[in-house]
């Protein structure tokens, strides 16, 4: 008589359950080009990878598992079919299972953080994570909204721009150090909570080859926005996308007096 233990249940009974968001974006090293019709940027045939801040989020979740603060880590991605590759990367880094909310290509370009946060909120209703970690912003749109909106929709506390996550003194909450304009702010948040990762939270591992092969066997579930009952109607219309203006040449000056003189000439100082 073989007693089969559900690994997921066992893990979940001790430690937090973490949901990590990852977005597939154009790779950071690619020289992005604007489409000739100025409706957007060229994505066809261009290298894509996981948003770097999301890699940091995934790494944090895996580290929390290794420290036994977390029991189960689930990755979720909202995007086109190729987002599966992004999820496989997360699985190869140590995430237990993945969820792919597939967005049809027609609606992909018009997808906004408000839609993504609604989809994530719906998934949180069924998955019931203790902690959601998202990258602070995606490097393609730089919105920096999804984490905040998600927390508001769920009415959960939020701790954005995290550079450190640890248990609070009484171990009942999470103590998060945030990077803000004035320096570092440390707050305690009760779980469940939404945290967004900033650059200095950690240095993500690269997936080892054995883990890449193991990731193939980890579960990856698919969902659609319809199943989740979320309307993807766009609320914004992109009018045009243009290259940033070419930086004009500067001028060198010999002394502070010259500098002040030039600033006066340009009417920048009185």
């Amino acid at each position: 008589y073989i007693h089969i233990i559900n690994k997921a249940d066992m893990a979940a009974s001790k430690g937090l359950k973490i949901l990590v968001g990852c977005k597939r974006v154009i790779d950071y090293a690619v020289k992005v080009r604007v489409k000739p019709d100025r409706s957007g940027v060229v994505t066809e045939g261009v290298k894509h990878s996981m948003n770097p801040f999301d890699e940091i989020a995934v790494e944090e979740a895996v580290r929390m598992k290794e420290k036994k603060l977390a029991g189960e880590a689930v990755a979720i991605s909202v995007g086109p079919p190729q987002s599966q590759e992004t999820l496989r990367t997360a699985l190869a880094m140590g995430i237990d299972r993945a969820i792919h909310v597939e967005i049809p290509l027609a609606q992909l370009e018009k997808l906004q953080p408000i839609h993504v946060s609604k989809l994530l909120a719906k998934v949180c209703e069924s998955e019931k994570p203790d902690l959601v970690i998202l990258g602070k912003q995606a490097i393609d749109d730089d919105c920096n909204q999804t984490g905040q909106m998600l927390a508001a929709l769920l009415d959960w506390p939020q701790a954005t721009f995290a550079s450190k996550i640890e248990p609070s003194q009484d171990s009942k909450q999470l103590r998060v150090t945030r990077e803000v304009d004035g320096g570092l702010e440390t707050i305690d948040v009760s779980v469940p909570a939404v945290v967004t990762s900033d650059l200095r939270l950690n240095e993500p591992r690269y997936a080892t080859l054995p883990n890449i092969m193991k990731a193939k066997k980890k579960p990856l579930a698919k969902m659609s926005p319809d199943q989740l009952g979320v309307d993807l109607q766009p609320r914004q219309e992109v009018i045009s996308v243009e290259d940033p203006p070419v930086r004009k040449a500067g001028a060198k000056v010999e002394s502070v007096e010259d500098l002040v003189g030039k600033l006066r000439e340009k009417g920048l100082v009185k």
Partner: protein
Amino acid sequence: ASLSFTVGRSFLCRPVVPYSSVSNAMRRSLSSASPMSGSDASAEPNTDKLFTAEHEAMRSTLRRIIEQDINPYVDEWEAKEIFPAKQLFKKLGNAGLLGVTRPVEYGGLGLDYSYSVALAEEYGRVNCGGVPMAIGVQSDMATPALARFGSHELKEQFLRPSIAGDLVACLGVSEPTAGSDVASIKTTARRDGDDLVINGSKMWITSGMQADWMCLLANTEASVKDPYLSKSLICLPLDLPGVQRARKIRKIGMHSSDTAQLFFENVRVPASYLIGEPGQGFIYQMLQFQEERLFGAAANLLGLELIIQETAEYARQRKAFGQSLLDFQTVHFRLAELLTEVELLRSMVYRATAKYVAGNDVTMLASMAKLKAGRLVREVTDSCLQYWGGMGFTDEVRVSRFYRDGRLLSIGAGADEVMLSIICKYMRTLPKPPKK
């Protein structure tokens, strides 16, 4: 305010951190993808059936290691004429990169050769030839016979730690008087009780100064007349008395790879260190030549592509006689010709790999690929260097190093002439040896 900061991640450093040399700055922007060449296998969605998402994921991991742990140090290693193999191989071993096709029982991944080729291609991203060459010896050239024919004890002692990156391996075949003519090597390993006693010397041994052990080819069967059946492969620890690492050979290229000449004077190893069957050493060595040759060809593809792109970017910026150098038709047409040849070579490598993975003998195709690769590297680097002009002749740009490093491919791992002989054998045009 966002704090601009580098933790080994360059994405917050857009625009590019200033480098001392022009070519370094361009290399950064070209490092991962270029819309210019739709052929960069890492840029476009994978349409080749040969490579799956897992191949791409492994290449990504290797790319990270190259960008973090190898390329920042290449200039230093080239100047020092050695690289820290122990440290680097441990990092590669931890990532699982050194035993991709080796048995799972000894720490390998047990995958097929297409994975080796995918990774070999990615090694073209390293800014020199020496380090990938040494890695290739460790992962693909020193251990195939051991993995296939060695005893369990031998594999535990030598294969497992080599895959883990704990021991540095080298391959000891060539001698001062025998390079292409492997059958005429003179090193002997004579049976004395339970030991083998080794006498002789080896030459041009990659990683020979640093290696912990050598996969040695030596004459063991004194009574066998046939030179192809008188040799054996032996695992030789290099810290034994009688092993002399005589000198590090100074070369015109591949500087970061230490190349050694070694002497063996009555070196004793247990007879059990012989791999597989005595007398089969030459055959064992020949069996893995297909892989070695495909590796050599695959490892240069990306480097060639990148140097062509880099040369185009340089020529675009460089002004001569009132226009950009790139606008001269001879320049942009020539670069197009060269890229065409690179793509042809790539197709041949992929085709040979696919056939090999399917269980076929690809000796002829692999030899053709190696032959073409050696010649193409010389042609591409020579033509590109010309367009860099005076700068191409300096140490400050990458093309000059590639020109020097690339020259070895037509010589090592099977000289062009040997490749041609093999192809002629398949064509049945090779003359019969003169009757004695």
